[in-house]
């Protein structure tokens, strides 16, 4: 629908560019008459479209939590009117945050060379990040561009949040499967107040009973504790702290390190294996 609408608007605009006083200039924003984008890649949406996008992407991502594009769309559709401005103002109130907004750095495999990160000292932020990417088998280039946020500066803030998300993973050591993701989203919700991070917690219903119990007793209390105490994560200039000790950074940000989920899983698996072997021995 939106593609058609955009094309329609483009055609209309092409037809009427000659006369400045054309009725399209004063006609209200509709599906057939989309205003010009505020930044490259921007897709202006009406309120109804935004609402539909929010509901659709929320349901879609609940059905399939691996759909990062839907989660991204949900984040953008629910970030306005208030939340993304709050996050931008948090950046504007901080010298580093202001510097980030001024420089507008992007995190890609181009700007952050993995080969360089792997050469950094052990336990540095950059090395930890590289190790985490390797362990989880992900790349910084998988992040979509922001397209549904109207204010171009807020769009950058959203982009920055999205690109820094992997750093949050790396610093907390949380893995990308649902359990780790939810723990991190809970932390992010309390830290950034972005509604998408809070809405993501509904994925809780998809977890297994044992995971639910573990989440409620272990990672949720951790997320609440750290989230309420921590400084604004968005104001970390990650490109500049790559060589810093990761424990030092965690202390600066007031974030505790949560129990390592992969280790826990491994231990549980080993335990199950041992129990199974014991059972087999007993029966055999």
């Amino acid at each position, binding site marked *: 629908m939106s593609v058609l609408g955009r094309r329609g608007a483009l055609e209309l605009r092409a037809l009427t560019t000659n006369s400045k006083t054309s009725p399209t200039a004063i006609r209200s924003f509709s599906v057939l008459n989309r205003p010009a984008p505020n930044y490259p890649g921007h897709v202006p949406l009406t309120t109804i479209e935004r609402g539909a996008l929010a509901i659709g992407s929320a349901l879609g991502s609940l059905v399939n939590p691996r759909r990062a594009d839907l989660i991204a769309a949900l984040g953008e559709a629910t970030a306005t009117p208030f939340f993304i401005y709050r996050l931008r*103002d948090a950046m*504007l*109130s901080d010298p580093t945050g*202001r510097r980030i907004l*001024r420089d507008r750095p992007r995190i890609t495999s181009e700007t952050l060379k993995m080969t360089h990160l792997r050469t950094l000292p052990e336990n540095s932020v950059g090395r930890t990040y590289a190790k985490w990417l390797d362990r989880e088998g992900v790349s910084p280039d998988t992040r979509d561009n922001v397209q549904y946020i109207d204010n*171009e*500066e807020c769009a950058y803030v959203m982009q920055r949040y999205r690109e820094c998300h992997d750093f949050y993973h790396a610093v907390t050591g949380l893995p990308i499967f649902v359990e780790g993701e939810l723990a991190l989203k809970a932390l992010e919700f309390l830290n950034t107040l972005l509604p998408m991070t809070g809405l993501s917690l509904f994925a809780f219903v998809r977890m297994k009973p044992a995971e639910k119990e573990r989440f409620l007793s272990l990672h949720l209390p951790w997320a609440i504790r750290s989230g309420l105490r921590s400084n604004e994560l968005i104001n970390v200039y990650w490109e500049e702290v790559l060589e810093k000790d990761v424990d030092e950074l965690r202390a600066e940000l007031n974030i505790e390190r949560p129990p390592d989920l992969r280790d826990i899983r491994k231990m549980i698996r080993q335990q199950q294996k041992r129990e199974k072997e014991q059972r087999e021995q007993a029966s055999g």
Partner: protein
Amino acid sequence: MRPISRSALRPHVCQTCRHGIGAGRRRFASQSGSPDLYDVVCVGGGPAGLGLMAALRASPITSKLRVALIETQDLTKAQAWNLEPTQYSNRVSSLTPSSVAFLRQIGAYDHLDVDRVQDYQDMQVWDGQTGSSISFDWSMETSPFEDPRTVATMTENANLVRALLRRIAQSGDENLSLFSNSTVASIETGSDLKPEGPDLSAWPVLSIKPTGPSESTPKRIAARLLVGADGINSPVRSFADISTHGWDYGRHGIVATLALGDLDIPPFPASKRTAYQRFLPALGGPIALLPLPNNHATLVWSTTPENAAYLKSLSTPSFLAMVNAAFRLEMTDLSYMMGMSSTSDISHQDELTWRTQHTALPSQVPPPATAVQEGTVASFPLRFRHAAQYVSPRVALVGDAAHVIHPLAGQGLNLGLADVASLSKTIQYAVSHGMDVGDLITLERYSSERYLPNAKIGGACDLLHKMYTVPGEGPVAWARSLGLGVVDRLPFVKSFLMKNAEGY
């Protein structure tokens, strides 16, 4: 109220009976002889005190009264005040049309240097937090083909004081004493000097001493009516034992004279000038830019004492950047810039340039300030005071001695001039009806005419201040924006408010 034994509180008791009551109780008799008697003595030679003198001298009814004015500063210097045409004093006031009408009526307006006076026809006021705005002009009352009506007139206080002094000088020096460079050493209640002299019990008797080292004995004068136009710490008010209520706002007003950049004067209506005021809830008060001639403007920025100290410590380019930012940027940016260290590599101007690109500017932004006139950046504390009463037997308070209000509506001087207009009318009435000008019954006319209007305007300014210092988005911000929007869209409400502010 000061303790007064008899006469003043019992004006209905006739002279002879009154004299009988006090007979045999002669106190302080013939203390350094009988003082000089005046009908009206005004303490304080600011715009209010001088306005009263000029008004009394201008009216044929009161011009024969024996009047005196006591002022600490040198009045001859004030009368000879002169500045380069491109220089403007930082003490500037906005005169409402009713104040201008009063000045015209007493003949003082003709003595004003009109090249240094600037009318404005439009006032743009907006909320820096929510962006809601209101425009005060008379377009709802006038037709679009008339010249726009003046909302207020900006004038330097020094220009006004000089005009009033010239007007007083024009009236001659008969029955007039100007005690310049003089302070009131003491005020006491006079005594009955009968039979050698007049009965001055209940008359205030002032000892006047020249400022500076002087051997001369203080001059004593007695006042039938003593007018306190002596400011917020009024000695006359303390003498009359009138209590005053109020509070300090914990805010300072920063003033400066600025030169403005390219002024895009609209082709129609010609020569329309605009005053701008933006409320900055996060910084503790509004910033206002009021037009002066030759593309200059005067700045009044109410803010916390810490911010005021910070602003005064800035270099000129940074100060200008802050002023321009205050009319353009969002509260978050302003709060941040208010704490920027002057040693950082990024200057205030860099921040302003960068943030302006990312901020949606409203249509009513003033032209950028490009220069600060040297030595004009100053600040003063903002206070609210209201005297419990304006009159007491043989005493009347006018201007700041009676009320001090928040300057956000630029009403302080106008209220003072309205007091003076009312008091001079009261004195005229008393004189033409053969009443005692110092009598409480005479003065109550003045008090009843002015107390409520002053309380109303002072209270309105106080309420506006309190509403517009609640930072952040919230119910208060929502409510005040709604209120501003409603007033802006309802011409009769706006017209009613403007008439109130104008003093009609």
